[in-house]
């Protein structure tokens, strides 16, 4: 039933192998590439539904590969990167990647991310059918600007509502601070990540059960935010 095609760009053969096996177990069709050059060839010829990119490649920069792919490929891109390379992740996300995973990662986590991305991509175009969006106990009416939690109306300030909408539009993608600030506040505010943190805290206090252990508005430290549960 699951015939999605996935391209793995990774120079470590062992990692490529186990990821390949895990994905094949899930019924995906897997293509492997170990360099930027091969990745471009595969991406052009195999028409994958999702690309997994390791940022450290022998013949080039993963970020360049992403921005090149983004020129003609609309499918989700998932990035693999080390923990202490936050700027690299932000750059990759800003270049057009949709999500990232920190090495070392667990296979269940990887599979969950892939499914979420594929689901989001598959839905594109159908969101407009209804003006209502729901995740978990939260309901948002994009037409009337109304928000409910557990069926109770929640009052949001205009900024909070714009922020919520931006998150909803991003679906399960990781949105960098820059992307969110640009969308909600505008170009003059892209350096003021603390605005985002304060308003995100308000949003969590209004919509989360326990703001310190959020279910929906997940923090990716030093990188950005992700909406879960959509």
């Amino acid at each position, binding site marked *: 039933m699951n015939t999605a095609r996935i391209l793995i760009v990774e120079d*470590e053969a062992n990692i490529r192998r186990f*990821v390949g096996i895990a994905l094949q*177990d899930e019924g995906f069709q897997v293509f492997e590439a170990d360099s930027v050059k091969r990745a471009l060839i595969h991406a052009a010829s195999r028409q994958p539904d999702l690309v997994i990119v390791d940022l450290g490649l022998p013949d080039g920069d993963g970020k360049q590969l992403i921005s090149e792919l983004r020129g003609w490929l609309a499918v989700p891109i998932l990035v693999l990167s080390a923990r202490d390379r936050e700027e690299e992740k932000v750059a990759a996300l800003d270049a057009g990647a949709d999500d990232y995973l920190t090495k*070392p990662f667990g296979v269940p986590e990887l599979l969950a991310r892939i499914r979420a991305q594929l689901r989001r991509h598959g839905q594109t175009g159908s969101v407009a059918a209804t003006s209502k969006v729901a995740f978990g106990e939260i309901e948002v009416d994009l037409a009337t600007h109304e928000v409910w939690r557990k069926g109770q109306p929640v009052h949001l300030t205009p900024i909070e509502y714009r922020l919520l909408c931006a998150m909803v539009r991003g679906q399960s993608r990781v949105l960098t601070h820059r992307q969110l600030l640009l969308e909600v506040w505008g170009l003059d505010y892209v350096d003021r990540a*603390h605005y985002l943190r304060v308003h995100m805290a308000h949003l969590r206090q209004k919509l989360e059960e326990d703001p*310190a*252990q959020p279910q929906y508005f997940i923090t990716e*430290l030093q990188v950005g935010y992700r909406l879960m549960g959509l």
Partner: protein
Amino acid sequence: MPALNDARPDPDALLARVQQEEQAALRGKLRIYFGSNAGVGKTCAMLEAAQREVAQGRDVLAGVVETHGRTETAERLHGLEQLPRAHRLHGEFALTEFDLDAALLRHPAVVLVDELAHSNIPGSRHPKRWQDVEELLSAGIDVWTTLNVQHLESLNDLVSGIIGIRVRETVPDHVFDNAHEVVVVDLPPDDLLQRLKDGKVYLGPAAARASQHFFRKGNLLALRELALRRTADRVDTQMRVYRREQSIKTLWPARERLLVGVAGDAGDERLVREAARLAQKLEADWIVVHVASAQGRGARRYLSAIKTLALASEFGADTATLPGMDVAQALVACAREHNANRLVLGHHPRQAWRFWHQSVSDRISHHHPQIDQIVMAHGVVPDRPLIVEKPAPVPGRALAYGWASLACFAASAVAALLLQVFDLANVVMLFLLTVVLVALRYGRGPGVWAAMLAVLCFDFFFVQPRYSFTVTDTQYFFTFALMLGIALITGQLTARLRHEARTAAARERRATSLARLARDLSAALTVEQISEVALRTFSGVFEARVGLALPDAADGVHSVGAGGLPMDDSIAQWTYDHGHAAGHGTDTLSAAKGCYLPLKAPMRVRGVLVLELAQSERLNDPQERRLLEACMSQLAIALERVHFVEVAQNTLVQMEGEKMRNTLLAAISHDLRTPLTTLIGAADTALPHAPPGPLRELLHGIHEQATSMQRLIENLLDMARMQERGVRLNRQWHSLEEIVGSALRQLREPLARHQVHTSLDTRLPLVDVDALLIERVLVNLLDNAAKYTPPGTTISVAAHATSDSIVLMVSDTGPGRAPANLFEPFARGQQESSVTGIGLGLALAKRIVEAHGGRIEANPGRTCGMHFIITLPAGTPPSMESL
């Protein structure tokens, strides 16, 4: 264009004023109680004011107050804190003196120092009390003092002229003029005389003596007028300064500049004093010069002029000596060069016998009528002859005259021989040649002597009648006159040539020694080489014994270089700390043998040069002084250069080290993470394929161990990064809630079997932290809690803000035993526990928190469990301008 410029304040002047104000702000303020006479009540006025200040709670210390046995004074001193006097032995007498060091140490807000003009007993740090006061002011202590008008340096002559008594203790005018406040204490002469009669001023027979000599009504009136007038001058100056500061619209006239020429005789000192007063009245800069020519009366005159120049620079003048044969021309050239619009000269009455001689001022007014001249009366004060040490007799001076005489006699002998062949007229030439040679070899004096002697010899030995000074043929008188004239003129010319050659040679010597020093110093790469070059050059050029003291890392100076002069480390230290010259020939510790000079480089003082000159008066010569200063600044710059080379090298080494460490860390982290990723991923992937049973168990084990190894590696890498000096934190204003959330999310698996409870204050402000590192701290604490507490227990995270900090607490309900060295690397609660992981996590947590300026502590709970409390400084979060 010029009109535009005129209206604008001179930027240099403004800058100078700003600098003055900056300095003034740091310095203490000087208040002078100024009176015309002893007994007018200056000390009393000062003490009364001090009592008022003390009543208002100000910290006032009576540093030194002379009561002179007067009861009124002693009463007012009562209740003030008094500084004990320093006791010093001087000869057989034990003398007491103001204790400068104790006052500096005590550092009160105000210190009372009576009698500013007092001379300290020999062996004190400064010869004069006003210098002590300067040091107190530099240390930022306010000083109140008293002063009588006759002690002002520039009024010294005037006062001694009025009252007929010369005052030896003087205070430079700049001390008075730069005082923050001058309080005039005035008493009409009749009242003062009454007080004297009542015995309130002097006690016993001293009173009678004083009233006969000093306290005559005429004197008192004159002194009173002087005091009031001098204060009025000061007020006038202040007024003008104020006006200048306040109104920029008023015209800014070009600053006056006076050029003062001193001749090197007894009238100079008075000339300089008068010029100082004039310059102050005109608010003019002034330059005092001496033209050193061969026509002067040699070294004695030169030394006298140099002494006067030193005095002038004490008064605040720029000084210089000019080489030149023609005094008038040299002065005019100097005036043009410095844009001086007035020339101040002493009047030198023409001597009757030198009827042809025009005075310098006459010549200038004749040739350069456009230059204003002020000619001061000569007025040598007879009771104080100019004190000039006799120049050391030039060795061989008498010998030179001997040689000159001998040459003449030898010439006579040769002439006697030649006369057998040649005519007498030709023989005269031989004498002329002798005079020229003598003048060339021995200078002016012997030249003149030889000219006279030659004429006499010629007369005695060769003119009929021979061997007698009588002359029969009157024609020969003409020959004698001509011969003497020619001999004198040629002798003079030759001597001048010789002098100029010598001046040129001296200039050459300066230029070469500077050039050589520059070359040697530029080749020197280490401090040792520099000190070696310095010791060699300075001892050669200045004929002195030289020592060099350089600072160590703790700013303590030590003598360096082999063969250096033995020096007093404490004086060298003082010089280094204060940046002022000390020791011989200076105002500070002048009893010391050597002269201690600070080596001032652009950034700071780089060391101390100690000179023990063979001729100590040599440094009074401005030219020598300038040469010394040039050499010293070269030396200082060389030292600074080496210092910065060292700094640069160290930085480079450090940077290289850091770069390598970073590369190494990056490589290790990549090489360790890749196999771990594979290990964890492969175990995960294999798990669904394995049948339930031992294989599945084994895969679980691999997965678990690899995951805990991963955490260990992260800790190790972080620890290595935190070990570096000057860790750069990526600080931003973060929400603590997000960091806690992120940490809990990372630990979902290990924490799955525990109850996690969070209670974070919703009004928590943002904190300025490196989020990833603080997350690391939480991950470690929570991971520890998960490891060391039984499943099912509660782990809680709480946070609240206090006035200046944010407190984060991680608690568990585990066994809660805390060894003292919990935060040391590789310490754990239990020895050889089955739970994996070395105790690196807590050490890392401590290091991270401390790098943020916070602290972490572990408290065992009352019954069970552990509480880890992290306190982070709160700071001021950025403003959130509303949109």
